[in-house]
């Protein structure tokens, strides 16, 4: 089992494409699930889509959630509060990370079987990966 990754974006296409890219680089063991757009297909954020993606990504080792900005962040934070009220909630952490780079860093590390804290650290470490 590996840590699951959930990607929350205002855009369904963006979340889906980054999930595909990160999943390709990480390999098939890592569940990378997109939660993009609203539940009726508009740009925006849906707490229900994020909750469903978390359930789908969770295999017992926890879920690292990476958000793009704005309402994605606020809605993911709200979901964490909601999960506190559940019996036996999945272990979920939000990574404060750049969206694409963080998703790839998290997914690749998750593929090595590292734990949730290490995967979140890997996503957040993407800020310091210089390109030039």
């Amino acid at each position: 089992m590996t840590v699951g990754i959930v990607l929350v974006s205002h855009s369904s296409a963006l979340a889906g494409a980054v999930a595909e890219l990160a999943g390709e680089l990480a390999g098939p063991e890592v569940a990378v699930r997109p939660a993009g757009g609203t539940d009726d297909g508009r740009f925006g954020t849906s707490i229900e889509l994020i909750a469903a993606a978390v359930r789908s990504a969770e295999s017992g080792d926890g879920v690292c959630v990476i958000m793009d900005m704005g309402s994605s962040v606020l809605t993911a934070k709200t979901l964490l509060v909601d999960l506190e009220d559940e019996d036996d909630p999945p272990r979920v952490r939000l990574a404060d990370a750049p969206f694409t780079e963080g998703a790839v860093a998290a997914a690749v590390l998750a593929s090595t079987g590292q734990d949730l804290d290490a995967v979140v650290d890997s996503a957040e470490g993407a800020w310091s990966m210089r390109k030039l």
Partner: protein
Amino acid sequence: MGFDTETAVAWIDTAATVVKADEARLTALDAAIGDGDHGANLVRGLTAAVAGIAEKEPSTPGEVLVVAGRGIVAKTGGASGPLYGSALRRAGKALGDTTDADAVQLGAALEAMLTAIVELGSAAEGDKTMVDALGPAVRAFNDLAADGASLPAAALAAADAAEAGLAATIPLQARKGRASYLGPRSVGHEDPGAASTALLLRALAEVTA
């Protein structure tokens, strides 16, 4: 009469009505410095709140606000969803099991709304957000409530303070949300979140009058 179940339902109903009536204005404000969806998003969220209340038939004012908040979180789609939704849920929990909140109890619930928004959005007064309307409104409400004023008087003062807070956002430069990317170009516009907050507090003043 204080803030009972019927009044709480009327607040959410009236909020939905006034936001719908002002949807174009909110959207125009948001189109100037945001992404132009605040009016439509909030109408969607409040419509879900009204539907949730009709379905669940909550029996206390606190439960009304929790149910309304849940609908707003689920269906709004923009940042105002988690912000207003969490705020109403926190306010509802602050009211507890009371069936008829007095001014002091409602003031504590409004304070809980403000705390929820500040915590979730990490915004402070002066950032050009809904906090610039809600902060002064909650202070005005609680100042009067602490002096023993009636609930309608406190709610009226809160609505006036929210509208003054909204006007005061015009010269501010945004430090949160999409508008913050505009830097100095966000100056000279009312903040749409502060505008919707002012509508919600005017609705509260109307239903408690």
